[in-house]
């Protein structure tokens, strides 16, 4: 419990620091300092600059915020979809439940990283950066719900045979009312699902970015920043920058995992 609180606090501080860095006057993830390309750390650029002369610290911070915000939104969408599908499957006619669970199985069986790559690469190259970010997280959300929907379905089925459910029927409650009254009982199930989806999506977005299929330039993303790693000469010159990025990803995932433990 203490560990959880500590992790949540560190996470909150990380977000706050990133927000301060991004919001600082004159800081922008797209600003180019053409005098110093691939510069090492200095007082002007505490973490150096990239090949286009953009401040790495600002970009890492903006990427953290973007990645987290996107993942939280995607996770919310996924959890809501899972709640809807799971509840519908449990309370709808038997054929609906059967079909929904079959659909879940099909989705779970999909090699979803390849599917993500296919979907992203099918989009036109002229997609605007903001759209590419939105689409990336939307695709993640669209592929993330089935495992959660299965869990919700199981949970809702077990609620279906409870005394209070029978009593609610005895009171003449409508089908919709009964499903609605079930949702608060599923919160202990949905909340962890919501929380564990966030780091999974952060990771997935970083992976996609490292393949060049994630959030589009000039928007920063950790995956996109790691993309520069394929040039080993540059990696040798600037390893002191990428090591912190990798460390930050690990720390973030760890913190989220600990904070999300229910």
């Amino acid at each position, binding site marked *: 419990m203490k560990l959880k609180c500590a992790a949540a606090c560190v996470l909150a501080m990380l977000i706050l620091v990133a927000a301060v860095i991004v919001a600082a006057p004159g800081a922008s993830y797209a600003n180019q300092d053409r005098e110093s390309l691939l510069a090492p750390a200095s007082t002007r650029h505490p973490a150096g600059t990239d090949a286009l002369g953009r401040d790495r610290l600002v970009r890492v911070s903006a990427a953290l915020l973007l990645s987290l915000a996107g993942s939280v939104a995607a996770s919310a969408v996924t959890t809501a979809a899972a709640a809807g599908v799971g509840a519908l499957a449990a309370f709808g006619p038997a054929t609906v439940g059967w079909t929904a669970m079959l659909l879940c199985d099909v989705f779970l069986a999909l090699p979803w990283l390849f599917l993500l790559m296919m979907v992203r690469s099918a989009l036109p190259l002229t997609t605007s950066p903001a759209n590419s970010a939105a689409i990336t997280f939307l695709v993640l959300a669209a592929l993330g719900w089935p495992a959660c929907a299965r869990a919700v379905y199981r949970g809702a089925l077990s609620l279906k045979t*409870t*005394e*209070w459910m*029978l*009593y*609610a*029927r*005895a*009171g*003449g*409650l*409508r089908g919709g*009312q009964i499903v609605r*009254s079930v949702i*608060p*009982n599923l*919160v202990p199930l949905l909340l962890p699902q919501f929380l564990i989806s966030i780091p999974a999506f952060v990771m997935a977005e970083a992976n996609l970015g490292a393949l060049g299929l994630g959030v589009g330039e000039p928007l920063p993303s950790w995956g996109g920043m790691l993309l520069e790693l394929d040039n080993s000469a540059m990696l040798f010159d600037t390893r002191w920058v990428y090591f912190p990025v990798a460390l930050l990803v690990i720390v973030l995932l760890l913190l989220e995992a600990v904070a999300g433990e229910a």
Partner: protein
Amino acid sequence: MNSEPLLHVKLNADYAGKPVLRDLHLELARGEVLGLVGGSGAGKSTLVLSLLGLLPWRGGSLSGEVMLEGENLLMLSERKLRALRGRRIALIPQSPMSALNPAISLQKHFDEAWRAHEKHAPAVLAARVQQLLAEMQLPTDAEFLRRRPAQISVGQAQRVLIALALLHRPALIIADEPTSALDPVTQTQIVDLLRRLNRTHGMTLLYVSHDLVSVLQLSDRIAVLHAGTIAESLPVDRLAEARQEATLSLLRALPAPPEILLSFRKPSVRGVHEEPQFQNC
């Protein structure tokens, strides 16, 4: 019209081909309290679910007729049955704690029960809830209504369930062992409350219980359910005429002869002066 019974039941029920109720006949007059007694496994719960048309939810099937005010409930569509449950027949369930949805407040329970059958403004509901809570001797403040079921006592939960059952002023209330989960003092209070509701509102009550002592405190007539059928049905003041073994064994199990238990019965609500109250256990 008024000589016609409120409820007339002729019923067979089975679970997966195994008969549970066989040729069960039951009649209930308006304003009457019928005590339905029987041991475990006699089919009491099955009968309760059958009357509410809920047996299919537990995987059973029914044949025969359940006539409520001249209308056969078994012939109704699920849609019409739903509109009738809670409005014309209400249930007071057995275990108060598990009958309330643990995740929502008491206020929400009243809201949902109201919305199932009424479209009137919330003000009407608020007034009705206040009236019911007062009648149930429950706190009427908003703080109480904001509580979750886990934050009230079992006795309070049972009173809330009685209030919920009364919400739409149903013609018939089925109480399915409403006191079995309660301590003796609370049991007595709940039995008193049900009696008062019957005397003041003329509420028709089917009181299902295995506890003949509380049944004698409350009922005008008892029906003994044995092996899925009504073995015997008698007014409480003519229990001496009982001939069936099922009835006789129940009477023998009483802590005192029925005449003595009946003499402790409160005659009416208007004589509110406390008489010595018999308590079992």
